[in-house]
């Protein structure tokens, strides 16, 4: 196989002397890596990220709902939420994927790979996030609700305008944590034939037999994604938390992009 990649020629690690005759080992590897980069990145952008975003969206709706009915002690719904959380936190995510994709067809329920993955990730992530939101709700001082009553607001009005916004600010870093964890866990969707990043990488490895380099490359793309998510977390925290800052100067620190870029 001959790889022709002009710009990278100068970067080759191969000794100069060997370059003329046959192609150097590392040069071949560079070729594979640069060639496969888009083949890993594109499934990442079209599968991994959409799966993460859609599933997390539904997970958040489920989580806030389950947290609120527990916080307000709504009969039946509270018990249902506890049951849901008990089941989805107590069994492996991989098993849940298998049950939905390989098990449910036995009952005549056939779901396509991608929707099946969205369903399982939403339900699973919703269970974990519900606990985060519930804890944050309970951390809001009870006086906030009482103050709402005393200015004439109803329970629902106070929850929606006062308590929930404060709880979401508290929950935000933990929720971002969960989001990043789930983004990486979407690699499990490869086991139910979703062609996301890991599966694409494995296909390239099957052709090229370079597992170390290619898995590392896929890892770098995951790292890139999680770095972006971490950045978004920072921005979100800043926006949501303006009211927790003692001073406006703290909200917008000096811009020094070169300092601590990895954060």
């Amino acid at each position, binding site marked *: 196989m001959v790889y022709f990649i002009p710009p990278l020629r100068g970067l080759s690690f191969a000794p100069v002397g060997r370059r003329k005759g046959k192609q150097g080992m590392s040069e071949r590897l560079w070729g594979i890596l640069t060639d496969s980069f888009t083949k890993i990145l594109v499934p990442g952008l079209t599968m991994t990220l959409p799966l993460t975003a859609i599933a997390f969206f539904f997970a958040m709706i489920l989580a806030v709902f389950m947290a609120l009915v527990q916080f307000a002690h709504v009969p039946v719904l509270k018990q249902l939420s506890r049951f849901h959380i008990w089941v989805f936190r107590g069994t492996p995510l991989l098993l849940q994927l298998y049950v939905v994709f390989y098990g449910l067809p036995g009952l005549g329920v056939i779901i396509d790979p991608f929707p099946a993955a969205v369903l399982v990730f939403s339900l699973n992530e919703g269970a974990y996030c519900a606990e985060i939101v519930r804890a944050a709700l309970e951390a809001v*001082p009870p*006086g*906030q609700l*009482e*103050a*709402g*009553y*005393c*200015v*004439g*607001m*109803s329970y629902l*009005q106070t929850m929606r*305008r*006062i308590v929930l*916004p*404060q709880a979401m*600010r508290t929950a935000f870093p933990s929720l971002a944590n969960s989001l990043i964890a789930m983004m990486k866990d979407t690699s499990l969707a490869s086991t139910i034939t979703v062609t996301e990043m890991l599966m694409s990488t494995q296909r390239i490895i099957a052709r090229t037999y370079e597992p170390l380099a290619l898995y590392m490359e896929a890892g770098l793309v995951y790292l890139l994604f999680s770095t972006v998510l971490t950045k978004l977390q920072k921005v979100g925290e800043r926006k949501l938390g*303006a*009211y*927790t*800052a*003692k*001073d406006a100067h703290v909200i917008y620190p000096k811009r020094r992009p070169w300092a601590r870029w990895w954060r």
Partner: protein
Amino acid sequence: MVEVKGVRKSFGGAEVLKGVDLRVEPGDVVAVLGPSGSGKTTLLRCMNFLERAQAGLLVFDGKEYDLQKAGKKEIAAIRQKTAFVFQNYNLFLNKTALQNVTEGLVVARKVPKAQAEEAGRRALDKVGLSDRYDYYPSQLSGGQQQRVAIARALALGPEILYFDEPTSALDPELTGEVLAVMRQLAEEGMTMLVVTHEMGFARNVSNRVVFMEDGAVVEEAPSKEFFERPKSQRTRDFLRLIAQE
């Protein structure tokens, strides 16, 4: 104007209020004194349904309400005519000073936003916070927060203001600025029921004092009389202890 009769309340097995009667006339400033655990705060909270009494009657503007069984609508009607200032301010932490004041007006009373903001600014001006409209509670001192809380209560245009130890969380200097606002309100004829440990306020600002102990009213008298010619032995002991400080 506001009267409660036979208020009873217990938490678990402990009886906190043992049949308390209390009466506030329009324009009255009533100070409720008493040692910690005497049930002062619980009484105030029961009067605004923040706590459910096990028995008792509330007469507000001639209408009777059952403190134990009042329904949602009745509670809403009572709260519409009252306002509450808490010991720990309980400002909405995610709202600015001005939003704290307008929130109840806009959301609960359906006042148009512009009109509510005007009323909010007027209320904040009144408590001396014209330069703090857009500050969040975390950016304000304790005294300023309590004054925002008073402005929030005032903006609702209540017939009576309830204060639950409004200065207990403040140092003497900040206490002074909050008491000054309360004194001003008293001079304007605002009806107030104040649970407090501030003897100066009870003596100089309030016109009547209610002294409570162990969930019951021990003595009730005009302020001057209470401090100069206390009737019961218990009140005399209490006042002597305070005088020693």
